Structures are given as C-alpha cells and as structure tokens.
C-alpha cells in the first residue's frame, strides 16, 4: 500500500532535463557514484544534503529529454520519497512509475512551496499538502493499475507478484 508520506521540500524550476538529473558523463559509473551528481548543476547542495524521505517539488516538464531510466533510478537511490511537478516529461513519468518512484502531477504545487517547507503527500488521492502553511493542492489521480504498479514497487515487482498469485 502507498502510505501517506511527509518530507522536507527541495524546489526545482521548469524544464529540468534528464541530462541534468543524471549527467551523461557519469552514465557508465556505478549508481553509488552517479547519485552523488544528481541535479548538481541546478543545486550543488542537493545531492550532498538530501535526506531519505525528502520530496522534490518542481515546475513544468520535469524529466524532459532522453529515455534514460537512470534519471528516476538515481533520484530514488538518494532516498527521495516522491516527485511532484506541474508536468512531467512523458518518458520520465512512465519510467518513475515503472521503477516504483511515486509521482504526482500537480500544476499549483510549485507556487505554494518554498524550499525547506514540510510537505505531506497522499499518492492515491493525488493530494499535496503544505504542512508549514496549512494549504492543500489537488493533482491528477492515477489510474488503478498504475497505482497497483507503484504499490508493488515497480512494474517488474508487479509482474513477479502477479505470476506468484
């Protein structure tokens, strides 16, 4: 089941591309090394200081660009609980679900959060709460099957669980 999650917010702007999330130069590096460089070109503090359970809140078109799955993988490897954005690059959106990284498309979230504020996310209901300011913002609810994939921890885990069932 997807629990309600709470975490500190890291803010990013519009059009964050997958080359910035996981730079090509580290593409052949092991994940332990690659994750140290996630989004460093946008905010060098991010990969060093992000804590497990923190959430990313971003503007439009997060994860645009190439189909590299390392982008959501590396964000997940840093322990980020979920990504909220006004919109996502289509393939990033799919890849995040496929690897079990919860995401919410919420057009208003970015303008109602400052970095460091506390967010509470309800993935099945697509609700984004700012606990610091006590405001709630609705995002786009995902379909049942997509939520099942996220609950299972990704599409391969989902495949495995259904085969076992």
């Amino acid at each position, binding site marked *: 089941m997807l629990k309600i999650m709470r975490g500190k917010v890291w803010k990013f702007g519009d059009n964050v591309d997958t080359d910035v999330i996981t730079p090509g130069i580290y593409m052949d590096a092991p994940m332990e090394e690659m994750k140290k460089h996630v989004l460093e070109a946008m905010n060098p503090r991010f990969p060093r200081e992000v804590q497990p359970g923190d959430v990313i809140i971003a503007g439009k078109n997060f994860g645009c660009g190439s189909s590299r799955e390392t982008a959501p993988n590396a964000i997940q490897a840093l322990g980020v609980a979920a990504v909220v954005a006004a919109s996502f690059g*289509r393939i990033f959106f799919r*890849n995040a679900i496929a690897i079990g990284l919860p995401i919410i498309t919420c057009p208003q979230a970015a303008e109602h959060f400052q970095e460091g504020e506390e967010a509470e996310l309800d993935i099945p209901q697509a609700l984004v709460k700012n606990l610091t300011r006590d405001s709630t913002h609705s995002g786009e609810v995902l*379909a049942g099957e997509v939520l099942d994939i996220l609950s299972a921890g990704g599409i391969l885990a989902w495949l495995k669980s259904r085969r076992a069932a």
Partner: protein
Amino acid sequence: MGMTMAEKILSRASGQYEVAPGQFVTAKIDLAMAHEAIASVFVSLASIGWDKVWDPSRIVVLLDHYVPACTERYADIHKVVRYAVKQWGIKHYYGERAGICHQVLPEKGHVLPGMLIVGTDSHTTTYGAFGAAGTGIGFSEMAYVFATGQLWFKVPETIRFSLTGAFPDNVFSKDLILFLAGKFSSEVAQYKSVEFIGPLAEEMSLSSRMTMSNMAVEIGAKFGFFVPDQKVSRFLEGRAKESFALIAPDAHARYEKTYEIDVSSLEPQVAFPFSVDNVRPITEARDIQIHQAFIGSCTNGRLEDLHVAAKILRGKQVHPDVRLLVTPASWEVYRQAMQDGTLETLIDAGAIIENSSCGPCFGAHLGLLGSDENCIASINRNFKGRMGSPKAQVFLASPATVAASALEGKIADPRGCATKGEWEKC
C-alpha cells in the same frame, strides 16, 4: 463521436469500442523494438526468473548505438545481446548489419499503418510517418512488454499542425520542425499526440515526413502522425511483413487545438545550444565558427538528405579547419548512395563516411567534440555534453545548412547554393 489517429489505434489495441483522452487503457503491443537495451531487459527478466518472451515474432532487435563496439564494456554488452536473442528465439535480429533502428524497421517492412509499436528509444515516434503509433519506453517497461505483450497507456489529447505553402529552395522539413519547436516550445505537445496534416504534409516525401515524426518527441509528443497515403503503400510494396490497411482519423474527431502554418517564407532554421527550442533563423546564426559538421542520424541520414548535401558539396572542398562526418542511416541508404555516386561526391569534397550507426549523435564514438568546439549537425538534440565535451556547443540544422557551413567553416545560409532538382543533372 469520431476518433483521432491515436484514439483509433489505442481503442483497437485495447479491445474497446471507443476511447477518450485522459482514459487509462491496457493495450496489446503489435511490435516491440530493442537495440543494445535488450541486454538490460534480458538481465531484468532473468532476475525475476522469467525465461521466455510473449511472442518472439513480434520483437525486432538490432545493434546500432555502439557499433562496432567502441569499448570493451560494449563488446561485452553485445555478447549479452547475441545470447539473449538466441535464448529467446527472437525471429527478427539484424545485428550490426542493418543500420539505425528507426530507418531499418520501416525499410524491412516491420512498421505498418495502424500498428502500436514501442521501442527502447525516444525517437520511436518516427514510425508515425507511416501512420503507426510509435513511442519510446524505458528498459523496465520493455521488460514487462517482452514478458506480457501488453502495456498501460493514457489516451492522449491530439493537436494538429495544418501545413500549407511550398518550401523555398534549400528549406526543408527539418527547418519546419525546428521552427515549430522554437515558436511553440519543447513542451507544446507534452503527453499529446500530434497529427501533421494539410497540403504540404501530403506533398512531402516519406523521408521528409520521417524527419518531422522523429523530432515530434522534441516538442514533447507521444506520437507524431502523418496520415498514411499511397506513398506509404508504394514504399511498403515488397517490404511489408504482413498485410495492412491504410488508416485515417475520423472526420468528426475532436482535437485540442489546430495550428495553421504556412511555410512559403520560411527561412533555414538553427537550434542554438542547449535546447532544441532555442531556435533562430539562419540570418541570426551566420558566421559562428564551426569545427565539426555532421550529416546523419535517424533524423536526417536518408538518401534524400545525402543528395541535398552532395549537390551543395559537389566539386568543392570542405573548409580545411572543419571535419565533415557523414553517416548513412542504414545499409540500404549506404548502398544506394554508393551506387548512385553520392558517396564519391561527398568523399571528393573531403567528407568522412562512417558506418550506419547512432555513434556521434549522442556522443558515444566516431567523432566527439573537444572543449570549446562547435558542431553543426543534422541531428535531433543539442543538450549540454550531447556530442562529447560539456564545454562544446551543438547547433541543429538541415543537411543543406550543415553542408553549406562545412564549406564556409562557419554557419552559412544554404539558400545561395545549388537548389532542388539539380542532383539528377550532376
């Protein structure tokens, strides 16, 4: 209620009478394409104890990103690919003897109108030029497709670009798609299906259509359709792997928006670093010094593109401070260009002819950039570090603009060069 191309194909593939934008469906995949990524798919499925694929005849595999293997690591990855292909009994395997996936699949008759096709490559949208719903997915999702033959989709909204007018000399569909990215941004079609329609769309060659469908993903699109016509039928004669019927959107289909575009006064366009929608007309790009020029890739490496370049380069010499790389998009293109003398013209002008592969386009091998170098390229992306050094700059343009620039040693306007129709006389 009528349906768009995307709605028709997704409703058929999901076994529903009708679907509407926003709806989630589970669809049966008609064809799955994997390049080197199949190695990762194989390892993923093995890790959950899965040892077979849903239908070995509906999967096409080839090697195109790192051929011949550019490092020991990729030589080992290629070994896994060959092993996986044998273990799974993949019926259509072309290895490194065919070319770039998005050129090869249509040539070999795998891409047919109305199909739902997924590939481990974002430019799988190219198949929209044949009326197929082609789209890119990640490795984990491809593993799921290999196992089950199915995948979830959100039915997209559809936008249309209605294209009219005639291209001025040495202005091409590449200039048009760059212009659209510049005018409407790289996310105008985010999550959406695009249909290119109108008299100009009908007039365009299949090669020119493929360039636009290919780059539809650069404006965010999930699919980039042209309505398939007799040009598609003729191309597929003797190639198609199975029978097919042409498909068209319904007359009363609902569109989110239609943009009207007249190309009569379109100038050659150049996308400046570091995004595809950072586009300016050639008149604002002239005189930027270049060190490398590249004609090739799944975007613009077809015979039509090589002919355009050869017309401009014939009897001239590439600037001494520039290296010009040419990569025919497939072995078929390579062979045709060899037989009709195009390659000789290009070599005489000083071009380096490379084997058909993705190589330089995404900075893997066969011609990378050093720091502070500029490259003008007929490819699809100019992100930071795309072709080597993050301190290098990549400018995107048509093969004509790339060829003209290679002669000048700086970004140059191709409109003064040899014009359409002269190739036959050469």
